[in-house]
């Protein structure tokens, strides 16, 4: 139905957002082709904060990414990825831990292995020791060599087969062309990412991630919006999803806790690899090789989410903030996303006030953001209100009345515009690499079909009755109200009409 309506150009775009999921030795592998000049590789692990046994362990594990492994030290990882021109990053979500590498697609004709005489004076030795190397599927290999002579020189070169051969003559005869240059870098980065998963060392002296953890926590503590969202999750879900993304201010976790957690989550069933700009077959092959000896056991379980709701307030710095929201249980639905889009007061045209009823009634200096956080078995939707103390009560009341109005029924026109906004938000998220990976991550572990078309077509099914039914159910549940700032003067939930 959807395919029949698109134009030829849209077909191409839709096809680009379609990812086939292949299961290779227990690990799910998805490859997306989005026509960008860079490739990326993301390893998603079901090790988000909802699975952590102790507060702050998931954050600590994320900060430990790319430190020493059996194959490379932390310095080696950073320098090698530097040399190959890649960017490594790790991020933590409530459900997944993501380790990513981004690199150029085809940095072909990389480097050539040169004889020492060609390099000029100083390279005297005849003995070249290959220190580390990768062998590609076609038998050619890339290695880093060190000279035993007076001058330390490393060559990154291409050679034919036999990787650890110190015989330089063989290197001079080597072939220097790779049939498919883009595969070279993906080999390297698959190796870097997967070696952290399979053989991280967690050395005691590298537990200097402790300052990184406390930096994360301090940055979050200074931001009242983040504080409000974290507290809202704690109040709404009480366990599992309630765990904060950040470690507590005085964490009581040690190296052993991190090692135990890593052993529990780094198993094959818990891992998915998403590549953009890499061929599916090649990626599957690399993943197979990397995870050949990995542990295989069922990952950590999290009890199914229940929504509770409630009210709470904490001291905070910065603008007075209130979060007014409601949670739903079950897989995220297009109706709730449409509700979030309907409530969203941000204007589509810059510098205008927008057509949202909230925007019209907001007092000066107040700002309201719509919040929509879908998870695999629950969602949290609501409004984040920030205003000076005097105006917060009024701004909060405006937000609450907009929420109630949505439940009582909205016009066809408003519904259509809300659906359009929600659809656009979903589609434009898939434009960026991070959005693609997030969209895939949401579905890859549950085994559902991954395509942008299916996501968008879900919005087409939202009509007035479905919308008002979903909104009414939402409003019937106990709301979650969180206030951050000057706790004496912040309004209470019943003062706002909740």
């Amino acid at each position: 139905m959807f395919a029949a309506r698109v134009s030829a150009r849209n077909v191409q775009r839709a096809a680009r957002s379609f990812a086939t999921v292949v299961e290779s030795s227990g690990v799910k592998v998805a490859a997306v082709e989005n026509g960008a000049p860079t490739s990326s590789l993301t390893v998603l692990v079901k090790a988000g904060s909802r699975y952590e046994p102790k507060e702050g362990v998931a954050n600590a594990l994320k900060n430990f990414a790319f430190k020493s492994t059996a194959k490379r030290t932390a310095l080696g990882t950073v320098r090698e990825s530097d040399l190959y021109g890649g960017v490594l990053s790790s991020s933590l979500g409530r459900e997944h831990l993501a380790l990513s590498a981004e690199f150029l697609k085809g940095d072909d004709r990389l480097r050539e292995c040169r004889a020492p005489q060609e390099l000029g004076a100083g390279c005297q030795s005849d003995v070249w020791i290959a220190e580390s190397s990768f062998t590609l599927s076609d038998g050619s290999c890339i290695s880093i060599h060190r000279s035993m002579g007076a001058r330390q020189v490393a060559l990154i070169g291409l050679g034919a087969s036999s990787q650890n051969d110190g015989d330089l003559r063989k290197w001079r005869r080597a072939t220097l062309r790779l049939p498919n240059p883009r595969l070279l870098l993906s080999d390297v980065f698959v190796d870097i990412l997967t070696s952290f998963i399979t053989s991280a060392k967690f050395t005691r002296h590298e537990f200097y991630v402790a300052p990184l953890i406390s930096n994360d926590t301090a940055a979050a503590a200074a931001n009242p919006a983040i504080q409000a969202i974290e507290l809202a999750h704690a109040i709404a879900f009480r366990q599992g999803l309630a765990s904060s993304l950040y470690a507590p201010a005085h964490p009581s976790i040690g190296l052993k806790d991190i090692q135990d957690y890593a052993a529990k989550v780094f198993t094959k069933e818990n891992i998915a690899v998403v590549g953009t700009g890499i061929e599916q077959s090649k990626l599957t092959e690399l993943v197979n090789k990397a995870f050949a000896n990995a542990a295989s056991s069922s990952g950590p379980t999290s009890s199914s989410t229940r929504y509770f709701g409630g009210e709470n307030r904490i001291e905070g710095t910065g603008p007075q903030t209130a979060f007014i929201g409601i949670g739903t249980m079950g897989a995220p639905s297009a109706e709730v996303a449409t509700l979030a889009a309907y409530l969203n007061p941000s204007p589509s045209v810059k510098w205008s006030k927008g057509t949202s009823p909230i925007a019209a009634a907001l007092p000066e200096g107040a700002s309201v953001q719509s919040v929509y956080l879908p998870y695999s078995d629950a969602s949290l939707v609501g409004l984040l209100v920030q205003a000076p103390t005097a105006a917060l009560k009024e701004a909060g009341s405006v937000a609450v009345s907009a929420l109630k109005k949505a439940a009582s029924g909205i016009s066809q026109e408003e519904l259509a515009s809300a659906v359009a906004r929600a659809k656009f938000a979903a589609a434009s998220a898939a434009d960026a690499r991070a959005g693609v990976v997030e969209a895939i991550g949401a579905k890859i572990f549950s085994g559902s079909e991954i395509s942008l078309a299916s996501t968008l077509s879900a919005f087409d099914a939202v009509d007035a009755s479905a919308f008002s039914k979903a909104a009414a159910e939402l409003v019937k549940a106990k709301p979650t109200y969180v206030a951050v700032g000057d706790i004496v003067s912040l309004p209470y939930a019943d003062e706002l009409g909740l």
Partner: protein
Amino acid sequence: MFGPLSISLAPLVQNSKALSKWVTPLANWYADAARYRQYGFKYDDLVMEENPTVQRALGRLTPRETYDRAFRMKRASQASVLHAPIPKDQWTTPAEDVRYLTPHIANVVEENAERVKWDTVIVVKKN
């Protein structure tokens, strides 16, 4: 052959079964004759620490190991004042005489070498 701190034939001996069989009793006799165990020391307490490498390795000991090391030093200083070994029941046994610091030193030496390697790398790019 080149150990972390000095030239050493120990790896050569340890890798060869015949050599080990003959050299080990000699080595044990030598360790006893050196009499550091009679003052409550472990061998690694006596490694020369006045250089940056060993200082870095010392930073990797656990708090317990650091405390015990300081205690052994203090106890041996007292024995030196008294010009006599410590009581026999407190002597270090051969089983306790574990090289707790040398692995850290070896790692630090390796890491230093790796850093030098990466700092002096010459990347030869074609075109």
